[in-house]
């Protein structure tokens, strides 16, 4: 493979690839994102291949695996093109049948397999097309533009969709122009703090010292968040292209610059796809010496992290890359001046880099127009929790929480009541129902006591205990605190201790005030972002759900019915049909009763595991 030397060669390559493809070619794509893989998509793909071969369709039907579609809740996802039919949950129950029917449906005039369509939970209507599914219809996919469409292991797929075009365009601009474009676009860091990316690049460009470093922070660590993983798995070249543009903007015409991707080793597929992509990019001459015939040279090294949450903090990340323990350090000096190996360094996260090519390609005005004031573009959220459609959703900045939770997420599971949404992971806070129409912007979330963070979004229903939520997140940060600075190490430990106590029914008068005082101090005094934001879940839940805390402490009651020490299970004799399911599922034989007679629950034996309540079809198990 001869490296591509200029824009024309790139264009002609793209033309060649596109020309070699038939738009009417039958194509089956199987999602091979981690979510679908864990639901068995690899087996589906293998079975489809076998079935296609058996049906003599080899060569006539193209089969390929793609990155994540985001609709992980409904995986494995299989899409049939060009008809644009989306099959969901393929092979979850009946692999052979599903596969067989899908292949059969490919025959001329055959009907698609309706039973594998997505069914709207509200209208109960089956929806055949990708675009018509509300989950997708209401999204705006920019960072995820290629996810689920291209085969991430094939650079040609990426190039066919215009990949590396933005790089070519950027190399014809001056670095200053690129920075101006970025600033104009109001792209802000998608990793948490929301710093203006263009400005960050500008700081680094102005700093003295070489080589400079550009680092992609792929150490996605928030529990439940997986947007960066999906992008790396499904569209690794977009990240590489974004880094290339960034590298050129920071050091183009100045001196040498080296790239690093710091990705956690717990993302093996991301590592694998990135490794492949880097190799391919090098072969095509997008990385290496004299890129696209210019005098700009750049290369990227992959650095696998061991998965410490704190390594997502930029100074800790750099320490880790340098081979030292991943501990943050005080700033100043800022990484832009003294970063990796003491040289000017720039760090952005995966999603940020993935957005860059689009901005260069389509211009800042377009990007800005997608979002709202000072919050240009889109943001990917990982929508999880008690919502019907969990998965990755990408929406324009400024979209309301309601739109995300109800419009895209399809509302709360089991028709229960929405209580709050926790955004920003362990560093974020809880937004209560009263603020459900809050537009998702950096400032908006901050004011509400939470943060954008990397885009975690956990939906919480009425049966969730907010104190327990706070306790959960504090447990996480006490375990993930690096332990370097006193407030984070010691303070979060004491906060967690107090929350444990409250959940155990041993809360004391003044605990809430202590939590508030300590939380504020930790936020104000901690060395790095981890500690500075660690109290957020607690402080925001106290802010919006103080009554729940008080109920725990004063009334020794858990309104969410979660905190075991504060609840008792009881069987409502009126609702109980005496079916005996509860008794059979009770691990400690606490339930007894005659057949077809209301059963009794012996509270002294009950361990409050909730198995009875989960199994009871009649809602007869009640929590007091």
């Amino acid at each position, binding site marked *: 493979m001869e490296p591509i030397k200029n824009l024309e060669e790139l264009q002609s390559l793209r033309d060649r690839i596109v020309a070699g493809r038939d738009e009417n070619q039958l194509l089956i794509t199987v999602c091979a994102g981690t979510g679908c893989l864990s639901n068995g998509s690899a087996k589906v793909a293998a079975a489809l291949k076998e079935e296609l071969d058996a049906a003599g369709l080899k060569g006539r039907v193209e089969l390929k695996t793609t990155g994540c579609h985001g609709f992980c809740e409904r995986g494995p996802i299989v899409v049939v093109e060009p008809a644009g039919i989306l099959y969901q949950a393929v092979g979850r129950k009946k692999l052979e049948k599903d596969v067989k029917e899908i292949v059969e449906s490919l025959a001329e005039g055959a009907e698609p397999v309706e039973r594998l369509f997505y069914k709207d939970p509200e209208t109960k209507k089956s929806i055949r097309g990708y675009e018509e599914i509300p989950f997708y219809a209401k999204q705006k996919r920019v960072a995820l533009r290629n996810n689920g469409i291209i085969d991430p292991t094939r650079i040609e797929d990426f190039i066919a969709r215009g990949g590396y075009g933005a790089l070519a365009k950027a190399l014809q601009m001056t670095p200053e122009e690129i920075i101006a474009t970025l600033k104009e676009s109001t792209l802000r860091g998608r990793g948490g703090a929301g710093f203006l990316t263009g400005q960050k690049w500008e700081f680094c460009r102005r700093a003295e010292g070489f080589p400079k470093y550009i680092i992609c922070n792929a150490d996605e660590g928030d529990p439940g968040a997986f947007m960066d993983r999906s992008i790396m798995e499904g569209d690794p070249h977009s990240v590489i292209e974004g880094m290339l543009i960034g590298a050129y903007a920071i050091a183009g015409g100045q001196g040498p610059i080296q790239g690093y991707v710091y990705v956690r080793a717990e993302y093996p597929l991301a590592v694998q796809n990135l490794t492949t992509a880097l190799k391919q990019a090098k072969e095509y001459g997008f990385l290496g010496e004299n890129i696209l015939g210019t005098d700009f040279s750049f290369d990227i090294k992959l650095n696998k992290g061991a998965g410490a949450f704190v390594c997502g903090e930029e100074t800790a990340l750099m320490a880790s890359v340098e081979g030292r323990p991943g501990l943050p350090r005080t700033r100043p000096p800022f990484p832009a001046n003294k970063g990796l190996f003491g040289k000017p360094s720039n760090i952005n996260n995966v999603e940020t880099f993935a957005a860059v090519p689009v901005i260069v390609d389509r211009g800042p005005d377009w990007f800005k127009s997608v979002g709202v004031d000072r919050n240009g573009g889109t943001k990917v959220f990982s929508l999880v929790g008690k919502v019907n459609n969990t998965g990755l959703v990408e929406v324009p900045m400024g979209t309301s929480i309601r739109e995300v939770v109800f419009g895209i997420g399809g509302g709360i599971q089991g028709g229960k009541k929405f209580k709050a949404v926790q955004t920003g992971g362990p560093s974020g806070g809880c937004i209560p129902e009263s603020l459900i129409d809050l537009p998702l912007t950096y400032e908006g979330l901050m004011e509400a006591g939470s943060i954008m963070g990397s885009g975690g979004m956990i939906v919480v229903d009425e049966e969730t205990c907010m104190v327990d939520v706070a306790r959960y997140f504090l447990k996480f940060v*006490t375990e993930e605190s690096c332990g*370097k*600075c006193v*407030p984070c190490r010691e303070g979060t430990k*004491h906060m967690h201790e107090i929350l444990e106590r409250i959940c155990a029914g041993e809360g004391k008068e003044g605990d809430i005030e202590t939590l508030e005082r*300590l939380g504020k101090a930790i936020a104000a*005094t901690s*060395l790095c972002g981890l500690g500075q934001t660690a109290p957020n879940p607690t402080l925001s839940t106290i802010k919006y759900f103080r009554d729940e805390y008080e109920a725990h402490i004063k009334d020794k009651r858990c309104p969410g019915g979660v905190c075991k020490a504060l609840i008792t299970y009881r069987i409502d004799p009126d609702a109980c049909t005496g079916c005996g399911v509860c008794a059979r599922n009770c691990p400690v034989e606490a339930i007894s009763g005659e057949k077809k007679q209301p059963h009794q629950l012996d509270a002294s034996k009950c361990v409050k595991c909730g198995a009875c309540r989960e199994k009871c079809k009649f809602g007869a198990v009640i929590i007091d």
Partner: protein
Amino acid sequence: MSEETVTFTINDEEVVAKKGATILDVAREKNIWIPTLCFHESMEPEGSCRLCLVEVEAFGRRRMVTSCGYPVEDGIKVYTDTEQVVESRKVVAELLLARCSENEKIIEIAAKLGVDTTPFTKKTEDCMLCGLCVQMCHQKMKIGAIGFVGRGSERKVTTPYDKYSQTCINCGACELICPTNAITAFGNSGKKPVPHGKEFEENLATRGNIDIPFPSAVPLLPSIDRENCVRFQVGGDACGVCSETCPAGAIDFAQGDVERELDVGALILCPGLDRYDARARGELGFGRWPNVISSIQFERILSASGPYQGHVTRPGDGKHPRKIAWIQCVGSRDNHNANPWCSSVCCMYATKQTVIAREHDSNIEPTIFYMEMRAFGKEFDRYVDRAKNEYGVRYQRAMVSAIREEPGTGNLVLRYSKENGEVLDEVFEMVVLSVGFQPHEDAKEFAKIAGIETNEYLFPKTSQFKPVESSRPGVFVTGIYQGPKDIPETVMQGSAVAGGAMALLGEARGTEIIEKELPPEKDIVGEDPRVGVFVCHCGINIASTVDVARVVENVKDEPGVCHCENVLYACSQDTQEKIKAIIEEKKLNRVLVASCTPRTHTPLFQETLRDAGLNKYLFELADIREQCSWCHMGKREEATKKATTIVKMTLAKVNNLQPVRTDSVQVTPAAMIIGGGIAGMTTSLALADQGYDVHIVEQAGKLGGLALGVYRTLDGSDVQAFVKSRIAEVEAHPRIKVHLGVQVKNTDGFVGNFKTTLTDGSSFEHGAIVVASGGVEYEPTEYCYNDSDKIITQRELEKRLESEPAKSGESYVMIQCVGSREEPANYCSRVCCQDAIKNAIRIKENAPGAQVTILYRDIRTYGLREDYYKRARDLGVFFIRYDVDKKPEVEVSGDKIKIKTFDYMLDREISMAADHLVLSTGLRPHPLTDKIGKQYKLTRNADVYFLEAHPKLRPVDFASEGLFMAGLAHAPKNLDETVSQALAAAGRAGVLLSHVSLAVSGVISKHNRDICMSCLSCFRICPFDSPYIDEDGKVSHNEVKCMGCGLCAGICPAKAFQVNYFRDDQILAMVDAYGDEICPLP
């Protein structure tokens, strides 16, 4: 300049600071308190404790930052005490207090922040995980033996896998830097602490890698122990903390050994000896039982500046022992695992230690286990008697065969047998091993380098006649290297070697002197005082207690002060140059330095003044260190006031200082030697060879003295031949004039200028006098000496054996200590044991069939003479001990002499018949001693030997200037010792005579004859006879004799005496100056 400074505000106050400084740096400079724990000047800021948080407003944002690492920038606003800062620090303190609830340092700093309790669950950690130790180990020491493991609350400092660390070098830096004293005993390395024992304290105390070896080291400077210093161990730029923190920048790692070549005419070897390592005697348990110590360790224990401040303490458990045993001859007089010679000093130092121990603690019960008490030195026997009788020291004649520790108590069980064979176990609380001397490990190599021969024990070969000359001409040996000896003999031989070397180098004397050229002294008389005042920081010695800048401020406008400043080190070379320049520039005519101590530093500054053309007495030093900062540590305010007072008082004196002239007197380059024996002749020859005229005054008709009756030395050398050659040399020497058969009639004058008239009327001038008047042999009256010609003295036997060898079958009995070690001559004559052994060996060598029995009290063959004792025993000479209370009984019975004595080993009386009874008679002072003593006002001791100025420090000097002594006139001694002392006297006298003139100190009393009433108060009180009654019958003053002690000035009712530099007006001005100060001395 603006590029290097930044302007910003702290608490709304504008501050200009150096670029690159941190907020903390600037705050400290401005005396704004910011608490810190994890910050250390020599480390990169970690920012982990979060106590130093301040609020900073920059770029429109206001946030909390750690001041330790935040560089100041133009326009920022810093707030160090806002509500949020105070509250945040409090919370941090509460968190720290929760973690380290019992740590004193944390409690202390929390209290400073107003936190005394914590609302959080308490733990009792000491480590607050600041990481300074880890940083120290990695970045400074470049070792990396410890590190952090675990995350969050699991985080801790430890070695890899919590295991013993191979990497740790036990440098202790982690312990040192830990702000909460959490690291003790190197707990993290898994290694047992092995601090360096301080060599001077005999490992009873510890030292660092930078150390001043001992309090009187020369030079008195710390040095780096390269064997252990991390810098040299690890290499590269490891550690270096000392060089970073030394304010004077005095650390130079590049310094090393330098090879130099020197051209010299003589080489003097005095490397001393090593000490026997008692660990070789495993049965005594040294190094195993902590309460078995060496005598040198005990020496340090007794020292007030020692490891236990002079309290007699057991190293094992710090208890004060009551029963202490000393075991003698550890490493001496022993062919097994030890040395065959006698170390000469242990008997006496052990006795001294018991006495001093008792003086420190009267509960102590000392016991000395010994073989023979070798108290052979001048007045030593009396000292031992005092130890026994006055201090209750128990002397147990026995060798201890084993020591074991009593389990649990730390006490020691000593096993020994009495003379009669009875074996005993006795418990002591502490045991002191009296260790002896041995040549250094490299003695062989050392001798090879010097090109000299050694004896079989690696001591240099010398002869009895030339004790300080090695086998190689021009190479001299001295001190214990020459052979084991006590301090007086060592000091004496030190002077002897100087005398010997000076004689060799006589012609070259004065040829290498470079005279310093000084500018003429400025005439400042009549000028108003123009004083320069320099107030010294003395590093931190003064400045950490006294606010020196404020002292300068307080003094600078005082009358007379023309220049006033504070300096980091006033004594440094560059400050001397600076003082000279300022004297020149500001035309100063007096200088005051407020600094450490006049004792060591006044001469330095005086020299600087003299270099600048000022009389050296225009300087005065105000002592604000030893009299102020050191004794008032921690009281900055009061100490600063006191320092100001001291400086002002001194200034008052300085304003009154006047130049003082220093006089000198000529020296007559000649000496008179009283006595023409070996001592007198040796002194004379050495002085004459040095180039001085010598007069020997010998009362007898011929030269030679007592040695004329001695034939052989212990090693068999021919004494007669030696005496004859000495006489010939003396008689042939052009510079020596011998006056035989005369005595001194009288001597006039003073040191350097004597005039002597002899009984024959002749007279001569000389600058020094050496008294070598000798001694005599004791003529016995006891043991039937006069009853039989079979009963003779050793001297008589010696003479007879020269012509009449002993015959086989003859029996000889010798009795020691005849006329010695008993009142009225209760001292050891030192020569008799050797004489007896010398003669016994001669008898046995000539006639192995002859029988020789020596009845002795203690055989005192000290030093290398021990060899002959052993030889005598090997030859079959019998030794039977007797006690002074049970002296042998002698009876003449026909041809035979019957002797009865008590044998302690057989535990009964025995009797024997001998053909010859030989009495070992001692020495007595010469009858002339008393006369000479009176003539020159020289003190004699109770035994009528001359008393030296100081038995240890000035053993050949008389207290009177210009007079020296040598030989038996001083005390009984052997021939080689006499030669040594004679050379020493020549050395001492030579030093005096080498001066063309003697400088007389300027600080002397000045006599105003006009107002003197000749009341004679001064005449009576002066210890130096300087006031005298002149030809007018009035008091005059001989300034040459004056030592400036000031007694006359104090007593003179007319104030006719004034001591230069301490005149009444000067002292009164100081008193007035103090009176002006209302401040009472703290």
